[in-house]
């Protein structure tokens, strides 16, 4: 959980796009192991093997996303996010505030959980905040896409933190949708680049 927290901070702070992609790959891999951890802690009997789910997530988040993003990155030839709306120092400060807030919120709500949910819930909420913050504060299309993946990761951790056993069908549906979503975002980043010679969404505004 602490590792997850740290990855969020480094995402907020890093300007190099390939570093960002490496970090979310790492985040995806950690997340993939969550279902297995959940089983260890609670001995809940899942109706499907959790390893299967872990494998699916590992493939999508640990392999497919990074490859897609790297590919887009190569084709659009940008290296770093130059002028975000909110600077990196300020981003970190906002991150700290968001983290405090997440921990505070989690103390207020009634829980009937295990140790895992107690520690994972604030991290999940924090991750959701980070993703949303990245979407609104960054200008490059690709960074917004990365922000979206972070947001999605947060939602996923939230789900596992609450020990929710959804059925396999739904899980796969969710993962598939997110996959197509990222795919479309990737293609569109490419088109934006071709149409404007840059991928700044701020300049997409109508004149």
């Amino acid at each position, binding site marked *: 959980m602490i590792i997850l927290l740290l990855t969020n901070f480094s995402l907020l702070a890093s300007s190099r796009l390939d570093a960002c992609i490496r970090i979310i790959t790492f985040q995806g891999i950690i997340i993939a192991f969550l279902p297995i951890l959940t089983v260890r802690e609670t001995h809940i009997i899942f109706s499907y093997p959790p390893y299967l789910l872990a494998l699916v997530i590992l493939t999508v988040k640990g392999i497919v996303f990074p490859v897609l993003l790297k590919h887009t990155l190569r084709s659009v030839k940008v290296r770093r996010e130059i002028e975000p709306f909110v600077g990196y120092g300020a981003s970190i400060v906002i991150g700290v505030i968001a983290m405090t807030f997440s921990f505070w919120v989690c103390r207020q*709500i*009634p829980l*009937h959980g295990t140790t895992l949910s107690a520690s994972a819930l604030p991290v999940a909420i924090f991750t*959701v905040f980070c993703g*949303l913050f990245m*979407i609104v504060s960054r200008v490059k*299309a690709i960074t*917004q896409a990365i922000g*979206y993946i972070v*947001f*999605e990761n947060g*939602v996923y951790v*939230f*789900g596992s933190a*609450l*020990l*929710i*056993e*959804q*059925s396999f*069908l*739904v899980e796969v*549906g*969710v993962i598939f*949708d997110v996959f*197509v*979503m990222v795919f*479309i*975002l990737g293609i*569109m980043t490419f*088109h*934006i680049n071709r*149409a*404007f010679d840059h991928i700044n*969404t701020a300049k*997409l*505004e*109508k004149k």
Partner: protein
Amino acid sequence: MILTLLILIPALAGIASFFVSSAFLRRSMLAGTAVLHCLLTAAAWVSAPEILLNGWLALDSAGLLFLSVSSILFLASSVYAVGYLGREHQQQQISEEGFIFTNTPESIFIACLQLFLSAMTLVCASQHFGLLWVGIEATSLASAPLIYFHRHQHSLEATWKYVLICSVGIGLALLGTLILTYSASMIEGEGLNLVLGQLLLNSADLQPQWLKVAFLFFLVGYGTKMGLAPLHTWIPAAYSEAPSLVALLSGALLNCAFLGILRIHQVCIAAGQSAFSCGLLVFFGLFSMAVAAFFIIGQKDYKRMLAYSSVEHMGILSLGIGLGGTAVFGSLLHLINHSLTKGMLFLAAGNILFVYKTRISSDVKGLLGRIPVTGALWVAGLFAITGAPPFGLFVSEFTIFKSAITQKHYLIAGLFLLLLAIIFAAMSYIMLNMAQGENSEPVKKESSFGIIPPVILFLLTLLLGLYIPPGLTDILNSVAFIFGGA
């Protein structure tokens, strides 16, 4: 069998369209799918369709109602699309600003259209909140390429906005779904199950605070998709850029998202939290109407004007449901009427755009002289959409208003009336100016593909204003009962 076919036929036809190379065959597949889907929906009215996957998929009366609206609209749009693609087939075009762009390959366009229909059917039929989410997300994914049909900068901007805002909204709805599951998991001894029927049975045991939080997330998440202010910002951009088939987005997609909100509202009612959810619905409804009224005044782009009008009508729907009582009936009737009328207006707007090549309303003059049928439809549509008698929207808006008065919500009723009046004035100023004026150009012959679908939609709205068939009243009543109406 019916339900399986309803979902599978458009999906398979959609996938097949990717690989069919003949344009004629592809277009006839589109029309064929639409007709088949319509017939199957009609069959579902006669005999109740089967229940699939342990009750995950079943068509209850609410689903059937929403599905029928979508199906009719899809049929109209696909007939229109056949004509539209016929005249848009030249690959390169000059845009208003004078740069060259190409259209999305037709195979992708048609395929996505059919996949979109399949996803909408899934939404209407799903009784499981997770599946509902998957369906709604699938509709936005399938419709993104539709908006990006004209490949140029502005539509790229619109699509980016659409995909990003809707995905975040839908992500929030997923969070809502998870929270709902959590509140259900507090039930002792029960397995975790998000099937609507089971949730309703056990609703009293749902943890109330978590349920409220879940409702909030659902409202914000699906509200984004449905176009409730302040999260409506993608609608004007997407609607003005997409080809006229946006009629489908406005008439059917928004309804699907609305169904998502209604389902959770249903759970809230059963759990005795209806005061909370109704209050929020009323607030967001009025707020959307106010925002729409503000932006319609002086709107320069006529497709954007129609888009804001959609925001307004979504506000009315949410207001009606929130008020409860007979207003729920009014709201559901309004949903049908709005879809039909707005569908017709968007198709008519497509005809105008084709002839005048501009979206700026002040550049369009003398519609009635130049393209008489579309011009007449445009004027009639104005009165229909703003809720003048004898059209269906008048009946439904009046029902909602009357219900607000009888429940002694005078402030809400007053605001409702005031906003409607403002919107009426603003829209008629814009639309009548377009219809009238000198026309120097010769009368242009209009293609029957572009005329027949909107005319039929228009006749249906008119019919609903004058006479509601008893079968429809029955089903509306039963649906209204589910969603807390009297």
